[in-house]
């Protein structure tokens, strides 16, 4: 078998080198698929078609399998995130302490359902299964920063600050 030559990077964008680095570190093995997709998402913020194609081709994984993995796991996103992201934890402890009301009130304020981004691309509203900060429920993450014992007012104030930026 001739030695494997990985395909060229899709563009000059330096982030592809990081993605390629993850694959090289794993010897371009097929089982590095999820690891590589994590690197793509952390570098680019989401996974677009070009990225999935590039990773699938480089790891010699069928495109159907790569797409199947991307859509199976909740953590991977096919759409670019907004400038800011509000994530409401929807774990059990948060639910018992009223996370559902927080979600409803954020949906109402932003006029979008959870899991989507406002039309101006400013704010994404997401839910998490559990971030493990249950002792401070209900918890929201403002751009990844954990904020516990969140009240509806505090959350809406945060959204307001982002909206006027």
């Amino acid at each position, binding site marked *: 078998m001739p030695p494997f030559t990985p395909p060229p990077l899709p563009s000059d964008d330096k982030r592809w080198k990081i993605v390629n680095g993850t694959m090289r570190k794993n010897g371009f093995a097929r089982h590095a698929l999820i690891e590589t997709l994590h690197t793509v998402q952390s570098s680019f913020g989401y996974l677009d078609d070009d990225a999935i194609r590039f990773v699938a081709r480089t790891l010699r994984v069928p495109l159907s399998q790569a797409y199947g993995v991307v859509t199976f*796991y909740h953590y991977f996103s096919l759409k670019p995130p907004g400038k800011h992201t509000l994530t409401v934890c929807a774990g*059990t*402890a948060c639910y018992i302490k009223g996370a559902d009301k927080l979600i409803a009130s954020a949906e109402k304020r932003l006029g979008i359902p959870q899991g989507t981004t406002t039309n101006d691309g400013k704010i994404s509203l997401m839910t998490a299964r*559990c971030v493990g900060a*249950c*002792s*401070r429920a209900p918890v929201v993450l403002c751009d990844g920063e954990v904020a516990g014992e969140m009240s509806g007012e505090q959350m809406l104030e945060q959204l307001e600050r982002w909206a006027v930026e």
Partner: protein
Amino acid sequence: MTIEELDQIAESVRQENAKYDYEVNVCMDLACASQGAGLLRDELVKAAEASGKKVLVRRTGCMGPCSSGPLVRVEPEETLYRRVNSTHAEAIVAGLGEKPVAELQCDLSDHFDGQVRVVLENAGHIDPEKIDDYISRGGYKALLTALTEMTPNGVIHRITESGLRGRGGGGYPTGLKWGTVAKAGGDMKYVVCNGDEGDPGAFMDRSVMEGDPHRVIEGMALAAYAVGASKGFIYVRAEYPVAVSRLTTGLRDARRRGLLGNNICNTPFSFDIEIRLGAGAFVCGEETALLASIEGKRGTPKPRPPYPAVSGLWGKPTLINNVETYANIAPIIRNGGKWFHDMGSERSKGTKVFALTGKITHTGLVEVPMGIKLREIIEVIGGGVPDGHTFKAVQTGGPSGGCIPAELLDLGVSYDGLMKVGSIMGSGGMIVMDDTSCMVNVARFFVEFCMTESCGKCIPCRAGTAQMYTLLTRICDGVGTMEDLDMLIGLCTTIKETSLCGLGMTAPNPVLSTIQYFKNEYIEHIVNKRCPAGVCKCSVEAPVEVQA
């Protein structure tokens, strides 16, 4: 690395610590860190320098009572301060060796006295990013002792003797599992740590991985030696970035010290560990699904047998244990199987860590001996239900568990005891609910969770959980009938008996247990179209809306 060298490291840490008159430990676990513990630590360092006192400021893992955070513990006085912020730093340093700061001081002896710390023995005492701190508290001694003085069979024998059972929830005897993998043939075997803590409402494994990562690494290395594996994987949720970074640091430091890698401690034993990130799928807590995910595939479970112990990762014999199970290994090797066997109840040995959350005064992490009464955990250690509300139920085992009512609170915590009342031990989430929680609504919450998390491979789980959700929604909305309730019960039985993996088999548990103990709430929704807790849509007393 030899045992003598370990002792030398421990001694040098002790000498280093002896240079200081006081130790100020700052809890930097997620709950405290999210309330400014990082800034607090910086201010404490500044204040200590300015004061001229010899003070060691140390960041530590979770101290336990998160609801009182950010927490600071001062030694040697053993003073515990609660709700500390950065403005208190100077006062705390000024109080060292003099009078403690009265308004911050707290007495949580009721909370701590009933606890026994094995897994959490180092939490709150060591800096999780310093391997020498772990070594100074006896770390890695069990590994080196086992490698030089014990046979692999001897290690398995000691684990069997201890009576340790899997802490991921199933409760399978750990020694037996290790024995099966050890007996399996083949030159390549794997050891896997399940850190995919998917149970919403539980964070024990996160705390252990973040607060004491070397304990997990040492446990895995001991397991690898016992079963003859040379490669390990830790599968961690991507939602736990701090755990990933602490484990990465831990693995690097262990390699540098020669505690991982080739010919550990100059013996023929070689072992190394890689981290694999989960990507948000509850089903990946199921062992065969987890293995598929490590192989880079969709996390769908496979029928068992063959069990992973015989054919696991890439078809090779694979040992899978939970984080907390591995965290128990080093102490058992160090102190002997009998020591562990003497703790706990008849068929459940040792201790169990619980994440106590929900409507309870002291939320946080507790470690209790098996067999302790639920009432003691909730009313004494947890401080009871706050704000004048009354206790209604405690939920254990997450989406696979059940709700236990007030009349069963005198039940001792054990695998079999919890199973008997329709719940399970689970990984250790314990969520307390009061009279403001509607049990039908809670059941629907869990079923919705299982519905969205079902991998879709087998029909009972994929279609059944969706039908359960529809029926429960009808009841919650006040349009359900008694026939719906009967159909729901029938459906639960079918799903339980015919699903492929644990997710489906246990998904009906929250429904069945709430029907068993809170049937009157279901009937109230159906017959009187009323939600007694005022949560559901059908309720006359509409729930309080968050002000927009």
